């Protein structure tokens, strides 16, 4: 029996698997994302607000000009040009300052600073509006309802409490205007000529108070409705943005997983194929003819299985992308085709097949990865079903009406007319095709169909037994060609 002292435990290293994975954690960091989104939205709103102010300033300037001629009196108005001109100039001057500040602020300016600028803009606007209300007629016109524009804008820009504060500022300014006019130091004004010379009627204070209360009541109702609607919209927008972000993260995760799965599944077959080639090449000694035939079959099947794994994963990947396809970019389709042709040439040369390419530069706006799959699968199909020593023609030419024609044509075994519509089905191979190329996966044209659906593009196939097959696509091109861009 071993009576020696037990082996001391060495210092242990520990790791705890987090409860949620990286993708979930990343999406959970929504606060930063929200802050960035709010900042961009606030900045956009601040610019929009400035544009609106230019329109209002222009309107006031036009009112000033219209107030000069006598015809305004004919329609019952009496507009002295001084106040609209002063208001227009004031608005234009402050607007110029806001726009300059906004342009100079860097992109990473905090949401707090932009919100403060919006607050300053709204408060100054309300002060100018109070001045305009005084001249238009604080009690003799509906000018007081113009405050609603700023209340609505505040509901769009700010959270509910801040927009309510804007209602309070507007109420204080308007009530101040009325009180100011009530002191007789500043007589009330109006733009209605008929009311200018009328003696000021004394209205009971209770009536004045009720009138003011009803106006503020209307403002509050409008504030409540718009702020609630705005909050709902903001919440929906936020949910949509978060969902979109989760979808993007999940799509990236899926693509990464797809790559690794493909690698893991294909690698063993690559090793089997490589070692089978060693046996066939006599690198491990000469094999009897019957053994060579067996090893050749193993090699072919390993290669075929590897290709089938890739096609299946690719098709699954494409089908799952149908709901959220990648964003299109501008690229030269001719360059993509030339690259794929160059890569296919050594494979074709093993069977003495020549690829004749007549490819022009064609600028398109589409998903580059999809075009690579489309061309690679069509070209691979043309090579597979060509006869040894044959020719494959690849054409990419600009045509009229901003389109380009892409055609891939072989002089191979061809497809019977009654089977043409079936060739794009998963795993479908004509009897002639299966005999000519037993290692075909039957998925290449299914990938073409899926990509064509994603690109909303039709593929024309023309064929005759013994003549060969031609696949043609008409592609919308960008207005300027590569040489011009």
């Amino acid at each position, binding site marked *: 029996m071993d009576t020696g002292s037990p082996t001391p435990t060495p210092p242990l290293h520990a790791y705890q698997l987090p409860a949620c994975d990286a993708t979930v954690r990343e999406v959970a960091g929504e606060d930063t994302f929200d802050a960035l989104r709010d900042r961009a939205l606030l900045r956009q709103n601040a610019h929009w607000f400035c544009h609106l102010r230019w329109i209002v300033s222009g309107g006031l300037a036009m009112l000033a000009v219209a107030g000069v001629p006598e015809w305004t009196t004919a329609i019952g108005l009496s507009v002295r040009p001084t106040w609209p001109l002063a208001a227009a100039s004031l608005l234009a001057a402050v607007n110029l300052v806001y726009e300059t500040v906004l342009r100079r602020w860097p992109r990473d300016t905090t949401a707090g600073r932009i919100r403060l600028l919006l607050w300053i803009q709204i408060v100054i606007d309300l002060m100018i509006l109070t001045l305009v209300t005084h001249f238009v007629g604080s009690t003799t016109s509906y000018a007081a309802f113009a405050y609603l524009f700023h209340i609505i804008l505040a509901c769009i820009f700010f959270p509910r409490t801040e927009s309510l504060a804007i209602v309070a500022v507007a109420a204080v300014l308007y009530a101040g205007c009325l009180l100011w006019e009530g002191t007789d130091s500043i007589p009330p004004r109006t733009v209605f000529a008929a009311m200018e010379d009328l003696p000021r009627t004394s209205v009971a204070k209770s009536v004045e108070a009720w009138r003011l209360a009803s106006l503020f009541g209307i403002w509050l109702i409008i504030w409540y409705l718009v702020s609630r609607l705005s909050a709902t919209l903001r919440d929906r927008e936020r949910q949509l943005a978060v969902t979109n972000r989760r979808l993007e993260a999940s799509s990236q995760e899926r693509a990464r997983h797809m790559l690794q799965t493909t*690698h893991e599944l294909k690698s063993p077959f*690559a090793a089997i194929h*490589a*070692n089978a080639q*060693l046996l066939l090449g006599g*690198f491990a000694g000469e094999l009897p003819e019957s053994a060579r035939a067996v090893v050749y079959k193993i090699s072919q099947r390993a290669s075929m299985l590897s290709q089938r794994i890739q096609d299946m994963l690719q098709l699954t990947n494409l089908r799952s992308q149908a709901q959220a396809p990648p964003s299109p970019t501008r690229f030269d389709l001719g360059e993509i085709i030339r690259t794929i042709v160059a*890569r296919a040439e050594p494979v074709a040369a093993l069977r003495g097949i020549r690829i004749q390419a007549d490819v022009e530069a064609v600028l398109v706006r589409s998903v580059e*990865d999809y075009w690579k799959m489309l061309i690679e699968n069509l070209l691979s199909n043309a090579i597979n079903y060509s006869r040894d020593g044959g020719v494959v023609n690849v054409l990419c030419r600009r045509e009229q009406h901003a389109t380009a024609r892409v055609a891939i044509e072989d002089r191979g075994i061809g497809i019977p007319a009654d089977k043409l519509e079936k060739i794009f089905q998963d795993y479908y191979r004509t009897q002639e095709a299966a005999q000519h190329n037993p290692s075909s996966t039957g998925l290449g044209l299914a990938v073409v169909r899926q990509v064509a659906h994603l690109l909303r593009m039709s593929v024309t196939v023309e064929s005759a037994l013994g003549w060969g097959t031609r696949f043609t696509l008409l592609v919308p091109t960008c207005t300027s060609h590569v040489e011009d861009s």
Partner: protein
Amino acid sequence: MSYLLIVDDDQDFADAVATVCRADGHEAVVELDATRAVSSFEERPPDAVILDVMFPENPNAGFELARALRKKAPHVPILMLTAVNEQFPLGFSSRDIDPVWLPVSGFLEKPVDFDILRAKIRELVAGPPATGV
């Protein structure tokens, strides 16, 4: 005759490639991970590198190694062999053969036909120097 460095985590595949290269008269050494590949490269710079893309600990190790090797020797040709072709998103394309981003001289997809591989190696070791940084 050239000295070739084959870097691939799949020993069965890498040994088969090395056998074919040696049969063509080249001297070939196999390294199964990126770190050892760098040491081997520093000890004796090869005439060409045959490199896998994805390694167990890091799916981008092949790209990173290509960039590191290119910095050390801008003119040594690098041929990438990969089981993942360019048809997948997050894949790569021939236009990525760029001296800064992915400075390799060519790609071949696994399973690779040895006749094509041998022709490509002959072309790389005999051809003009690869583009360097």
